[in-house]
């Protein structure tokens, strides 16, 4: 049973992790995109629709990534080229995505979708206890962990990652050094959109293979909160996503076991746990300041 619980937790945490990882890169470049929910739901409908019409789940996944990135490009154009307010534009993107996906998805309601099957490695996935957990999950579970490793490596061990962080910390200095601030941010924003799209596809192709309006149900916002929770460090996002997923699943099991705690309290536990950790982390002011991208949310207009 424990194995099954852990697998359920991984399923709950994976979409949060993927979406948050994308947003982490965006915020590290100094841009705050509140449109994660909107890009995610666009990914969900695209993935579902493409998979169902073409019969190929992977095609659905790639289409979701592309649409997520394209949707982010709208945000990028507005905030980076036209220098609109990032908060307002991000919120608008979320509302736009929720509405547009509902409209596009009208014909797909009530139709069972395709499922991205889990990996099955002979022998390894049959190992007792850890087999299914480590070697028998859906492919995107592994992608989410590889993505984390890749982002961590990119940000802290490559020159390009250093440039991106420089842009996020002080865009004026970065500009003075000859870094194309706007171009870097465009790329970061599109990467964030691609990740959100992939996370959406995870919902409609792995988590619950169906299309229903608003099926993201606020997961984009949780992903946004996780970035802050993780103080913009990739591996801490993993910890946050799994803590959140773990408490969510744990409280459902506690209820099914008949633990005598009001279910409303149990349901709010994931949020309470997140807040508690956040408070503990932010007690160290200096470390928090060090990790927060100093230019986060500040518009940049290159001088000519």
């Amino acid at each position, binding site marked *: 049973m424990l194995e099954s619980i852990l697998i359920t937790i991984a399923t709950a945490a994976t*979409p949060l992790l993927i979406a948050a990882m994308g947003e982490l890169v965006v915020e590290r470049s100094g841009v705050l995109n509140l449109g994660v929910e909107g890009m995610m739901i666009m990914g969900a409908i695209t993935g579902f629709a493409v998979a169902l019409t073409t019969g190929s789940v992977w095609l659905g996944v790639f289409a979701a990534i592309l649409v997520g990135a394209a949707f982010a490009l709208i945000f990028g154009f507005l905030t980076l080229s036209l220098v609109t307010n990032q908060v307002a534009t991000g919120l608008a993107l979320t509302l736009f995505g929720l509405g547009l996906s509902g409209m596009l998805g009208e014909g797909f309601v009530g139709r*069972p979708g395709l499922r991205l099957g889990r990996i099955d490695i002979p022998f390894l996935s049959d190992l007792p206890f850890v087999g299914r957990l480590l070697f028998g999950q859906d492919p995107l579970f592994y992608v989410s962990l590889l993505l984390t490793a890749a982002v961590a490596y990119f940000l802290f061990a490559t020159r390009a990652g250093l440039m991106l962080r420089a842009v996020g910390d002080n865009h004026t200095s970065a500009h003075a050094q000859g870094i194309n601030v706007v171009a870097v941010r465009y790329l970061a924003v599109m990467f964030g959109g691609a990740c959100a799209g992939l996370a959406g596809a995870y919902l409609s192709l792995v*988590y619950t293979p169906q299309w229903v309006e608003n099926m993201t149900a606020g997961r984009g916002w949780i992903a946004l909160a996780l970035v802050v929770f993780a103080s913009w460090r990739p591996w801490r996002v993993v910890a946050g996503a799994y803590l959140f997923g773990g408490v969510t699943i744990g409280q459902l099991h506690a209820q099914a076991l008949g633990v005598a705690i009001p279910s409303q309290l149990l349901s709010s536990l994931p949020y309470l746990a997140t807040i508690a950790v956040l408070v503990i982390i932010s007690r160290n002011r200096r470390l928090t300041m060090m990790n927060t991208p100093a230019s986060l949310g500040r518009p940049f207009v290159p001088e000519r």
Partner: protein
Amino acid sequence: MRTKTTFLALTAAAALGLAAAGTAEAQDDPTKACWIYVGPIGDFGWSYQHHQGLLQVEEELGDAVETAYLESVPEGADAERAIERFARSGCDIIFTTSFGYMDPTNKVAAKFPDVKFEHATGYKREHPNVATYNSRFHEGRYIQGVIAAKMSEAGVAGYIGSFPIPEVVMGINAFVLGAQSVNPDFKVKVVWANTWFDPGKEADAAKALIDQGVDIMTQHTDSTAPMQVAAERGIKAFGQASDMIEFGPETQLTAIVDDWGPYYVERVKAVREGTWEQIDIWAGLAEGHVVMAPYTNMPDDVKALAEETEEKIRSGEFDPFTGPINKQDGTPWLAEGEVADDGTLLGMNFYVEGVDDQLPN
């Protein structure tokens, strides 16, 4: 599909118009009927079924009616704003279709005495222009309980609840009573999702229940996710609000289907003809407001028993809440042969004996 029905409706209306030509039938403004939904119309559950009712009104009343709806309106302060907006925008009748819209509906109704308000599943009618309507879903839940006890090998069913409100508690109780009529030791495990609609969370709740050993799944939340999880894990399940057989061709035993269309047509017509009156209607299988989806994936004897139970309830021969029934703690509630009155049911805040859960306050 939809353009086709609209076209048919239009031609029908034209034919009627021709027939009525020369009579005194006035061509006045269309009646504006408006709906507020708690979920998206694409949830394929609760809100979807209400929207099917709206479509039926459009189809049957044609040009005589103009419709509007707002979906995914959160219960609470937002609901009040949404209802008020509709009232200001010239709606003649507003259907508010979730329990949590009860107070907002009555508040707005006080300000707009000329607009008719119809609140689903509530019990407050504080103004003469507020009616309430509901369906006896618990009749269907009793039948599901009977089937569950027959089909379950573990003797435990999982029940995904939304919020611990009377409507949902009543459903759990009816399910348990039905099950215990077959197997007195039958148990129900309840998990509260604390949401009406979150496919992911509903799926997680279903997985948790299955991991805890239930082999029948039933839900009082609005998405098809639990049905899908049940299908994946190879257990049986009941659909909710819509016929969800597509999501579990070998899983769904039956589903309680809400058929609001006939009621909506009747009420909108009443507004149009000026005969609308405040009512409190609570109709069930007998009136056709609650319909059972085909009984599938079960042996013939279980099917026969389910049909027999359905017929008994429909004919009024039997009521699911007929004594002797004890409360959860063992204290007597209904004596032998005693039937619960509607008031008690609509305010139900206690479990009957046999529910394996603590009711949240």
